[in-house]
């Protein structure tokens, strides 16, 4: 299989969609840490990975978004599960899905989300504590054998940089880092006020091979951000918007955007110059399939 970074320059790559909404649909209960299903419900995870592979995703993501030891401890009642085991199991089973279902030409991304704690003045998270949490997670993902690392949904550059450095400490594989931003009057910002310009400068300097944005925004809102970031940097870009904004219907989250609408808008992100695209919350395999068709026709 071709190295990931080499392929980036040749065609637009497609990442998979939202994991959380798939697991909820499969019966994930209130207050249950989704990451633990890597150990307790591998059958469900195999099914989700297969669905995204069938839909045509070039890259699938491990179910380890909340699997730093810090986040796992916070989301577990009683004794927290062993973070290394949860991560390694997540990587191993996704790797198995790729092999068993005959998708040897796809890449596996080890997914890393925020610790859930905040740096001062909002919280007491330190650089050292964040680094150590990400190092433990990255090492376990490396042991389960991933092809690349995907750090996502970061809202504080300090935490994102700690994650990139931690991955760099344990692996030479490509690292992608996405922030999550909102559009304000003066432009795009994370909740702590970090900007696309800072991301473009500091994340590659810390060792990220690709940067981008995910979550928070629907596909239409992310198009201008893609143009803005393209103007800022030559570093490859990845964008993974949500499937519109969720609406609550009888206590359930419903994403009203259709796969076709989503795919049409994400193609504008591609036209703005992104090297890779995918989906976040609410994007089922149908969304990825619709996007696959449009990407194939575009190429």
């Amino acid at each position, binding site marked *: 299989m071709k190295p990931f970074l080499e392929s980036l320059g040749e065609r637009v790559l497609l990442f998979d969609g939202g994991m959380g909404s798939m697991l909820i649909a499969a019966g994930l209960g209130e207050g249950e840490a989704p990451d633990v299903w890597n150990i307790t419900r591998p059958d469900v995870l195999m099914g989700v990975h297969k669905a995204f592979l069938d839909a045509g995703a070039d890259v699938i993501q491990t179910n380890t978004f909340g699997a730093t030891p810090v986040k796992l401890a916070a989301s577990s009642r009683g004794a927290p599960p062993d973070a290394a085991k949860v991560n390694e199991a997540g990587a191993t089973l996704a790797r198995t899905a790729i092999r068993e279902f005959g998708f040897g030409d796809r890449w596996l991304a080890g997914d890393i989300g925020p610790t859930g704690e905040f740096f001062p003045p909002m919280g007491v998270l330190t650089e050292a504590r964040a680094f150590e949490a990400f190092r433990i997670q990255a090492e376990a993902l490396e042991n389960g054998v991933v092809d690349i690392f995907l750090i996502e949904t970061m809202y504080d550059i300090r935490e994102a940089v700690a994650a990139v450095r931690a991955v760099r400490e344990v692996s030479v594989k490509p690292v992608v880092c996405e922030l999550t931003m909102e559009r304000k*009057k003066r432009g795009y910002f994370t909740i702590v006020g970090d900007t696309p310009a800072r991301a473009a400068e500091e994340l590659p300097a810390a060792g990220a091979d690709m940067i981008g944005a995910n979550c928070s925004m629907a596909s239409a809102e992310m198009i201008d951000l893609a143009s803005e970031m393209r103007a800022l940097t030559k570093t490859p870009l990845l964008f993974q918007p949500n499937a519109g904004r969720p609406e609550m219907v009888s206590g359930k989250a419903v994403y009203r955007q259709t796969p076709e609408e989503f795919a049409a808008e994400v193609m504008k992100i591609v036209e703005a110059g992104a090297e890779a695209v995918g989906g976040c919350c609410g994007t089922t395999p149908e969304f990825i399939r619709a996007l696959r068709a449009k990407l194939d026709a575009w190429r």
Partner: protein
Amino acid sequence: MKEHLEQCMQAIVDGDSPKAAELAKASLDKGYPVLEVIEKGFARGIREVGRLWEEGELFLPELVIGAEAMKKAMEVLRPALEAGEAAEKLGRVVIGTIEGDIHDIGKTLVATMLSANGFEVTDLGADVPVKRFVDEAEKTGADWIAVSALLTTTMPGQKRVIDELASRSLRGKIRVMVGGAPCSKEWAAEIGADGYAGDAVAAVALARQKTA
């Protein structure tokens, strides 16, 4: 005095806790009316911080340090307020993130802003059982229960808080506001909540408007 009030406001906007405490002490030393110092000085500052945050001019760190400065000023002023003029409490609020949900930051922000704006707040933290919300509200004589839920899977817990109030015949006596990323006005209406607040500033406005 006008200049002093401007300085009080600015200390909050700047998030300067030592300065806010110092100005609060100076207000007492000079014998300025405490309520006026709060309302026309410090509280104006925290409202300005809230406005700038909503406008996207300030972000979470500035909002937090502004609220911290407000707290420091209030710590100095509160004893004088309670001793002298009739302590004008805007109301009591019991707040927490619903059981099964550990998302804390939004809820803490709302708690801080409510307390910075003169509400008496009991923050129960995250992963709070339904009964505990209602027990605590009964115990403290709360006007409001504020229930945060950040997950579509934990939102139904907000409704259970309302059901629990109903089963103890406390509906109408204790109001319920809901918030958190997946919530909306429609959701609040659907479950019969008394209000929805999309952020900390909206929560303060809602509590002010309906606590009378």
